[in-house]
């Protein structure tokens, strides 16, 4: 059978990280995949060398629009590792609260989009409505719905007002019933089972070989979470569970993320209720020469920063490793062997920067057939419809 190359991407007005996938297909089946990134390479590592340690937090906050807190968090921990200091207790609590709020809204955003790609636009609308509540919470706490600018080496920039806390807890409580309902709907829905179970399986060996991170590896049975293994913030003082499943398919990745949202709400509430009084900043003046490493668990996995200082007020090297950098290559293990109508959701299941999948074009080598992105989403949604009809729903 003739092999066809399916280019996916790279540009779409909504996406923050353009990526280009080229799938080689035989009929419906994907036999090879290649990924090309770098369309949005902004040279932030180089840029960071020209900023002072304090200014760098603002630059790297703009690396990602969704997990905008994880980068400053890892960076400030790396700088604190150079000086070997611990931030004040209250600052640790505030950092944890902001990081968990971000995890909730990031996972909800992903869940909504996953629903859309499977042809469940109701899920999409519902979940994004819930996400609005969280964005409001973040606005109350930090003044911004995104890019919170709360972090600085040595502490946090803004304090949380005591009188805001009851409002925030009320808002957090209000989304738990709807989330529980969505969780049940996903676990019980036979169509979602048929579309996602056993699809795009990442085995435990592959997860270790590719050094996959975060929910992508936890869904494959790798019980690793930076918050548990190398506790930072106040994660070692609070009761919470690490969510691990063992099948590694798309369904498990959905489940891990939904359950993590509920855990994150629990952590955030407990932090708000037990917030201690005290200083929020160490007022660090000088950074001595040396090198430091900071790593935190972002919504998508471990974010890793390496900073080297030569004693001046600027870093001489600042290495940034985002979690998707390690998760993206796992496509080679998950997509190959699956059908093209499943490729959309498998590519989406690691929660990459996602909207790339909306702009696809299918073309056969001789150029006789041309589908665009909408056609491929339609293919995916039609498959759901077909399964529904077969089940008599």
């Amino acid at each position, binding site marked *: 059978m003739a092999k066809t190359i399916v280019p996916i991407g790279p540009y779409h007005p909504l996406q923050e990280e353009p990526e280009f996938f080229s799938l080689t297909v035989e009929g419906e089946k994907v036999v090879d995949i290649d990924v090309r990134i770098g369309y949005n390479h902004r040279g932030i590592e180089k840029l960071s060398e*020209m900023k002072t340690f304090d200014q760098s937090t603002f630059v790297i906050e703009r690396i990602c629009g969704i997990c905008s807190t994880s980068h400053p968090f890892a960076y400030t921990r790396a700088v604190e590792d150079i000086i070997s200091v611990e931030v004040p207790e209250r600052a640790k609590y505030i950092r944890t609260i902001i990081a968990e709020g971000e995890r909730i809204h990031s996972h909800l955003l992903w869940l909504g989009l996953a629903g859309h790609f499977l042809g469940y636009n109701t899920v999409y609308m519902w979940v994004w409505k819930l996400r609005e509540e969280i964005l409001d919470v973040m606005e109350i706490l930090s003044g911004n719905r995104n890019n919170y600018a709360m972090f600085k080496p040595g502490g946090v920039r803004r304090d949380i007002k005591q009188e805001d806390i009851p409002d925030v807890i009320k808002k957090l409580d209000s989304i738990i019933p709807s989330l529980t309902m969505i969780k049940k709907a996903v676990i019980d829905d036979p169509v979602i089972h048929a579309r996602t179970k056993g699809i795009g399986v990442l085995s435990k060996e592959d997860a270790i070989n590719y*050094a996959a991170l975060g929910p992508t590896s936890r869904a494959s049975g790798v019980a690793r979470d930076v918050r548990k293994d190398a506790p930072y913030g106040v994660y070692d003082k609070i009761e919470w569970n690490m969510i691990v499943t063992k099948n590694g398919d798309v369904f498990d990745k959905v489940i891990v993320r939904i359950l993590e949202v509920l855990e994150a709400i629990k952590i955030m509430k407990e932090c708000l209720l037990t917030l201690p009084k005290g200083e929020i900043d160490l007022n660090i003046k000088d950074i001595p020469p040396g090198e430091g*490493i900071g790593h935190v668990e972002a919504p998508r996995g471990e974010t890793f920063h390496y900073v080297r200082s030569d004693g001046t007020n600027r870093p001489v090297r600042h290495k940034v490793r985002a979690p998707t950098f390690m998760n993206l290559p796992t496509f080679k293990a998950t997509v190959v062997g699956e059908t093209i109508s499943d490729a959309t959701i498998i590519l989406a299941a690691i929660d990459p920067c996602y909207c790339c999948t909306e702009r696809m074009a299918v073309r056969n080598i001789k150029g006789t057939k041309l589908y665009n992105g909408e056609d491929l989403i339609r293919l995916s949604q039609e498959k759901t419809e077909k399964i529904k009809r077969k089940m008599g729903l």
Partner: protein
Amino acid sequence: MRREEVIKDLRERFKEEIIDFFDKSPKRVYIEIKPEAILKVSDYIFKSLSARFNIASGVDTRYHVEILYHFIFEDINLLISLRVKLDKKKLEIDSLIPIFEAANWIEREIHELLGINFKGHPDLRRLLLSDDWPEGIHPLRCDYKEWDEKAIRDRGV
């Protein structure tokens, strides 16, 4: 294995290969090794001690180009960074792909940003830089100069 055991094991096993050993803090250890030994040491750390490969990071200093390979031992919360210093005249080191697939992209990245040749890498294509970026110009080198007069890169804008 506890922290002391891991460190003692590594120090004894690779007595010949280790050049410098820096115990920075309870969670961070920096070990400088000979560049030729990178495959041997990382193979032992990844396979026998089952550490996770975090990432590698390259730094251009005045005399050498350094590469740090970061491995985390999650059970004991210890991050070991293997440091290799490459002579600027001969920027070559063995690729780690035979040991784990996770090294693929980062080696491609260091190859284009710092100009290091990874021996045995199956596919050293560009990862981040655009197609019109000229060959042989590496943006993270100390001596990097803007090659395109029209570009606004690197002027502190």
